[in-house]
């Protein structure tokens, strides 16, 4: 190939690269409230493989500048979206002397509009929230469960249970999904069932704190209650979940709760119970079946599948009083499990969960 022809081919190829989008945007949908972390993958490297990465990049969405652009590698930039009105916008990247464009590459949206599941972190609320109407239990106990959330970020952060329906009349996509205003703590209302999945904007999830406590108000002068874990999706597991030092004895009833946080179909979990400090074979092997209670809407599930053995000792009377390792193996699902031991006389609760 002659030198001239080679140059023509190269220029034509380069022009073709620029005619199409210069990069992909993932996810390509974000909230009108902003603060979603978006990954930009360039079609061509911004520097050579052996070169140092540029110190900075600029990314704009429909002319509004993104926050905290981070160059991850020679192809990849992560940036936080600005707030914007609903609509489709061009994305422009300026890095290392290049100006790269993806036309109509990103959609800002809100209630009743598009939403990207990837922008949200799931949080499992293991037990029902009942802050106002005490639930009667054994031995005169009256249980309440309180859930609080706090947004310590300097901006509003979307937080909701399942995918909220747009109220009627629907305010339209310029209205964000339910959110917590900056610097506020909010008590959550009742009606949140066992195994509910909450969703918080992933880009601000670190600034979001939750706290849940269950207590028997008939014995509030004896005990302030029990802290209940709230489980971020990075702690959901497909591998065996080990619950160590679980008390199973005649003084208390020990329950085992298992959650399938995907609930795509009926699934099972294999439960094996071992004596502590022993490599011997399991004392008990059983299976728990988890049946879906909900169907995901655009990837958002409101209720995890849930199975509950309310009293392990009653279910497996061959277990002598003692402490046990309870191993829960999800069979083809991503989930979580914990045990709770409630004293028969005092109704005091001890939780055991994987840490």
């Amino acid at each position, binding site marked *: 190939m002659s030198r001239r022809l080679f140059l023509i081919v190269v220029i034509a190829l380069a022009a*073709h690269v620029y005619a199409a989008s210069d990069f992909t945007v993932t996810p390509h949908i974000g909230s009108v409230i902003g603060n979603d972390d978006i990954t930009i993958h360039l079609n061509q*490297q911004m520097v050579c493989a052996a070169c140092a990465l540029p110190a900075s990049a600029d990314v704009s969405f429909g002319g509004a500048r993104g926050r905290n652009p981070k160059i991850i590698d*020679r192809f990849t930039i992560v940036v936080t979206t600005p707030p914007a009105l609903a609509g489709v916008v061009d994305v422009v990247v300026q890095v290392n002397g290049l100006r790269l464009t993806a036309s109509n590459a990103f959609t800002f949206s809100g209630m009743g509009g598009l939403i990207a599941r990837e922008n949200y972190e799931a949080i499992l609320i293991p037990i029902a929230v009942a802050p106002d109407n005490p639930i009667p239990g054994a031995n005169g106990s009256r249980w309440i469960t309180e859930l609080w959330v706090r947004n310590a970020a300097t901006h509003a952060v979307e937080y909701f249970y399942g995918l909220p329906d747009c109220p009627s009349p629907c305010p339209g996509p310029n209205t964000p999904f339910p959110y917590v205003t900056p610097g506020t703590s909010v008590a959550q209302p009742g009606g949140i069932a066992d195994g509910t999945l909450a969703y918080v904007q992933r880009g601000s999830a670190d600034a979001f704190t939750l706290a849940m406590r269950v207590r028997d108000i008939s014995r509030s002068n004896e005990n302030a209650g029990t802290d209940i874990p709230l489980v971020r999706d990075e702690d959901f597991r497909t591998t065996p979940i080990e619950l160590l*030092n679980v008390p199973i004895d005649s003084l208390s009833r020990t329950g085992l709760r298992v959650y399938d946080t995907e609930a795509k179909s009926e699934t099972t979990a294999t439960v094996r119970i071992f004596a502590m400090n022993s490599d011997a074979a399991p004392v008990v092997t059983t299976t728990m079946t988890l049946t879906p209670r909900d169907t995901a809407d655009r990837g958002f599930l409101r209720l995890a599948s849930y199975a509950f053995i309310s009293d392990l000792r009653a279910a497996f009377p061959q277990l002598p009083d003692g402490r046990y390792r309870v191993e829960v193996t999800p069979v083809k699902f991503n989930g979580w499990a914990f045990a709770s031991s409630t*004293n028969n006389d005092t109704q005091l609760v*001890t939780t055991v969960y994987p840490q």
Partner: protein
Amino acid sequence: MRAFIFGCLLSVAGCLEAQLAVAPIQGSETGGDAVTISGLSCIDCSAAVIRFAGTPAQKVTAINAGVVQAITPSHAPGAVDITTDDGTITKGFTYVQAGTFIASNFEAVLIPLSLGANQFPGGYGSLWASELWINNGNRWTAELLFGNPDNNSGSSPVIIQGQTRNGQYIASAQSAFGLLAWVQKGSAKGFTFELQARDVSRAKLHSGTEMPVVHESEFKDSIDLLNVPIEPASSRIALRVFNLDSSREFPVHVVITPAAGGEALVDDETLIVRGGPGGGTVRSYARYGSDDDLVARYPQLANAGRVHITVSTTGPEKIWSFVAVTNNATQLITTIMPH
């Protein structure tokens, strides 16, 4: 190819290949260390094959274009070659004896309360014990170290896959608060810890309180503790703050506001996080500060009811914090921690 040619046009250096590099360059003979290998030609490196002395890595995870993280297999001490799809790094990794503490290879896990095998008398006839259990759920053998001078009390730092171990062998004679365990970064996610505090004198009334076990990633510059009950007639409230790696003692900023809303009841920077006891090559204890009785320190809280507590740093330090509410009559503990 098109992108490659375009890269060449952009820069003369655009056609240069990256050098293969590895970090860290040392790890345990046990295996289980996370090693980053960069300079690979792959853009999506999820199918990369990495071998140490010819043995495949336990696991390979694509990090970025040209970069993977490999979990080392076991091998006898000595330097070995690392083989990649793009060539070999000759003597690129050196295996060292198990139990050798290479700081960059380990992450700290905070055991906030540790009484070891001891039992301690408390108020109202209570007798306190703590129990720590550890399980290695990885598909490979890994190491768990405790700091000097407690060290491992003669126990092996090596925990084989699937093994469950009682942590009572840790003497913890120096402090009840802020014990550190060190696990290999490449294996940390596969470990499960379980910590309980129990008043053994009241074992018939209560099975104990689950205590948090805290990984490095959970330390932040600000911690929120929500819905904390202030009931001085029936209980005392202790605030405990930990730091893993500061080289200095430092104050934390404590703000306490009514849960129902309103002005801050406490806005104070007099709680100091100080150095933990012990020294040596492996740090034994976290830095630690506490208010053992919040109402005694801040009497204005006496009638506050429910409050939110925010603990934050004024410098670069990362902290973790929790509250323990202990009932005066029953000695039952409620922990309140960030989730």
